[in-house]
């Protein structure tokens, strides 16, 4: 008989939910959120915490509109990074990852077929249009305008980073480990020149000076000078010790060296010494160009472009997108900047690739939101179950036994009421370590008090009812009376509280995560909003703010809808008047 009553009390809420339209909607929404949580790995389009990076052959073109200079992004040249470019008399060449070579002629870019597959770092065009390219693992090859390729064998598979034609028959190659090679084109013979430093620092670039000598620059501000007829370079002292990435010398003798941390070294003519100049940004500069009259350009990470009028200060120019620029190519009509090695796809608005956009570290927000449902529901249901378990039992025991037991239990409830939620959770986090367990503990420790109070007051009136008295007369034990006679009667109230507390717990979890007290590296809706605010980007990136809040809202709302129909079971008088 008791069992059937228990069954009945469980059936009733279900019937109530099914009979209420709003509750049905709530149930449907809640079930879909549960499904989302269960199948989160399947539903996610990306790993939720993976930094999404992209790579492409970026091409920026300088445009002048009245006074305003802008560097505009043109459609990219394929998907491979472009590392170096050169231009001479109507022919432009750009080289990049996996042996990619692009040719620029008469305003058009076309991709050349190459026998190369390693990443290329350097390119240099001879007067007759013959082009030498070089790159990783000692790759060196010569392209002639008739379309043929000739490869050269190097003594060691070292990275070649820079090339300069010394004369029509010889080229200088510089690279990793302070390597300096002189390549005789006719014989293919390679002579290794000895660096005066000999500490294995990388050389990054080489350029020919107007007097036929060569400048070599590299790691830690290393600069070498090779006189036109000499085979031993001498060490040059330049200002600064940052890695130097590129050198360019104009026909007039004006020169520009760029490097890490906004390093800009300029000389006005062949006789002048190299002077360090202030950069408007301190990020890495990758390539520079200076014209005969001293008009200078430098490009670098994150789409940075600097320009300097002759004798003026360097100015940061507006550029289109945050690609990494690696090289400059200057033709008679155009200034091109090319790049872009892997760049983080930060704060991208929603697109086909990232449905809810990306965050400040280029992480996919759709996948984060999908995964966020797991923690919300876990804390919601587990927390609520714990709360109701503690609260219902405390209420039952206190209400049934009364006397001292009740006093102790209800005073404990009083104490719990006096403890504020967020600071208490912070103390728990400080005492232990932030974890899911702490969140659930904090939520449940401070919520069971309400349930205990409610259940107790209900039990207080129930225990005086005839059926309880009858059971007592029949000799039933206290436990039996409490759990088999009284409990089924408070079941509706328990269900109601359970539903409400699921909602409360979800909001509580979101609040803790928003304050940064949630478990580390876990993904929760509150945590996504926490990151959004912390990063400072939330005011622009609406795609970052809106979804998690809406998800919290509809989840909790659906639970509340369900709870409303349960309320009718718990409190039949409401139904009478509906």
């Amino acid at each position, binding site marked *: 008989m008791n069992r059937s009553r228990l069954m009945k009390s469980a059936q009733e809420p279900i019937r109530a939910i099914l009979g209420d339209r*709003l509750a049905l909607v709530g149930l449907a929404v809640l079930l879909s959120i549960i499904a989302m949580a269960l199948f989160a790995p399947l539903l996610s389009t990306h790993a939720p915490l993976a930094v999404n990076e992209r790579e492409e052959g970026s091409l920026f073109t300088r445009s002048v509109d009245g006074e305003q200079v802008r560097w505009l992004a043109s459609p990219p040249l394929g998907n491979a990074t472009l590392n170096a470019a050169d231009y001479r008399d109507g022919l432009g060449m750009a080289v990049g990852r996996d042996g990619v070579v692009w040719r620029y002629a008469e305003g058009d870019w076309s991709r050349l077929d190459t026998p190369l597959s390693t990443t290329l770092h350097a390119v240099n065009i001879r007067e007759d249009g013959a082009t030498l390219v070089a790159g990783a693992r000692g790759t060196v090859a010569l392209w002639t305008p008739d379309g043929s390729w000739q490869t050269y064998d190097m003594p060691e598979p070292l990275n070649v980073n820079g090339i300069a034609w010394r004369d029509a028959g010889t080229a200088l190659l510089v690279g990793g480990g302070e390597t300096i090679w002189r390549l005789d084109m006719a014989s293919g013979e390679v002579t290794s020149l000895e660096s005066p430093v000999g500490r294995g620092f990388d050389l990054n670039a080489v350029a020919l000076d107007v007097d036929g000598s060569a400048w070599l620059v590299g790691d830690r501000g290393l600069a070498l000078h090779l006189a036109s007829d000499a085979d031993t370079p001498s060490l040059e002292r330049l200002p600064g010790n940052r890695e130097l990435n590129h050198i360019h010398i104009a026909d007039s003798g004006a020169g520009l060296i760029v490097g890490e941390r906004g390093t800009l070294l300029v000389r006005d003519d062949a006789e002048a010494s190299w002077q360090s100049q202030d950069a408007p940004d301190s990020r890495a500069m990758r390539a520079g160009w200076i014209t005969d009259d001293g008009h200078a350009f430098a490009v670098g990470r994150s789409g940075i472009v600097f320009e300097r009028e002759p004798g003026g200060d360097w100015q940061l120019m507006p550029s289109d997108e945050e690609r990494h620029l690696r090289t400059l190519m200057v033709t008679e009509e155009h200034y091109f900047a090319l790049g872009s090695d892997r760049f983080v796809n930060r704060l991208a608005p929603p697109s086909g690739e990232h449905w809810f956009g990306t965050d400040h570290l280029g992480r996919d927000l759709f996948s984060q939101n999908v995964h966020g449902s797991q923690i919300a529901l876990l804390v919601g249901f587990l927390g609520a179950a714990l709360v109701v378990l503690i609260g219902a039992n405390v209420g039952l025991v206190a209400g049934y036994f009364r006397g001292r037991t009740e006093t102790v239990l209800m*005073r404990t409830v*009083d*104490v719990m*009421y*006096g*403890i*504020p*939620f*967020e*600071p208490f959770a*912070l*103390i728990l986090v*400080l*005492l232990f370590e932030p974890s899911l367990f702490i969140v659930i503990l904090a939520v449940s420790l401070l919520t069971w008090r309400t349930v205990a109070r409610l259940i107790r007051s209900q039990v207080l009136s129930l225990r005086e009812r005839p059926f309880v008295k009858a059971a007592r007369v029949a000799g039933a034990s206290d436990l039996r009376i409490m759990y088999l006679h009284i409990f089924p009667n408070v079941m509706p109230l328990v269900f109601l509280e359970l539903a409400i507390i699921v*909602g409360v717990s979800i*909001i509580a979890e*979101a*609040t803790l995560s*928003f*304050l940064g007290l949630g478990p580390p590296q876990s993904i929760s809706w*509150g945590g996504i*909003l926490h990151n959004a*605010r912390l990063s400072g980007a*939330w*005011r622009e990136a*609406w795609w970052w*703010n*809106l979804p*998690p*809040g809406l998800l*919290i*809202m*509809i*989840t*909790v*709302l659906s639970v*509340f*809808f369900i709870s*409303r129909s349960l*309320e009718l079971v718990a*409190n039949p*008088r*409401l139904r*009478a*008047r*509906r």
Partner: protein
Amino acid sequence: MSSRRSYLIRRVLHGFMALFIIATLLFFLFRLGLPDPTAALITEGLTPEERERIRASFGLDRPIWEQYFIYLANIVQGDFGYSFHYRAPVADIIWERLGNTMILMLPAIVLAYGVGAPLGAWLSWRRGSRADTSGIFVGLMFRSAPMFWTGMIAILIFGIGLGWLPTSGMRTLPYEASGFFDKIFTLDFLHHLILPALVVALYYLGSPLLIMRNTMLEVYGEDFIEMARAKGLPERRILYAHAARNALLPVVTQLAVTIGLAAGGQVVVEVVFSWPGLGREILNSVRTSDFPLAQASFLVMAAFVITLNLLVDILYTMLDPRVSFK
């Protein structure tokens, strides 16, 4: 009558007992669980000996029991001690912050209840109508959205987007006023109050609305309503003069509990709106192991909640004869 009085006395005593337990609990929890308050000074380059001297000046070099009894004795005398961090009397800091919190929370709660309760009554009257459903929907919707999110969205729309309202702090520069009341009786302050108070009020709105509506529905079933109806009184009059009056008790109860919890402030609202309230201060004091300040803030909040709960109980004993004094 005497049983009622002894009941009240007992409740008050229980309240003090709860406070004492909380105070003790916090004292040991902080001392044993939180990091050394001078730990942060390491980054300023202080040596262990120098830090030990600072600890001694805080009284932390004494045995923990001695510290505990000094602490209790001071509390009894109403002395909350000196903040480690601010080097200022804890009481000054707390009263100021509590004032800031309440000046935000009270108007918000009053607004929520002032709108929510009549609206709930009205909805119960129109029960089952489209207005009823959408009223419930809206009330529950704001109850379901976390306040920090509503706050962020409100800032985005009204602060940054439209530029109508200030989004942080309690006032704009230059600050002329120095007293608390000088500070709050200005248009500028009201201007700053609008957004955060609205966000809090919207969150709280659902609660009086639903309680009022549901209790009204219950009350409609009572005999005296049927009687009034039989007498042919107009529905509107029955609604407000008879039913609503009887349905107010649970709403008032809920109001008192809400105000009690409001002392702790809504930390997230204070964070989102840069409001210099007690909630933020208490988080900071725990983070910096400022024991005196943290202990006192917790105690003040607890005292607030317990007092308001006590008031509710008293209210019940006065208004509802069914409550026994056992």
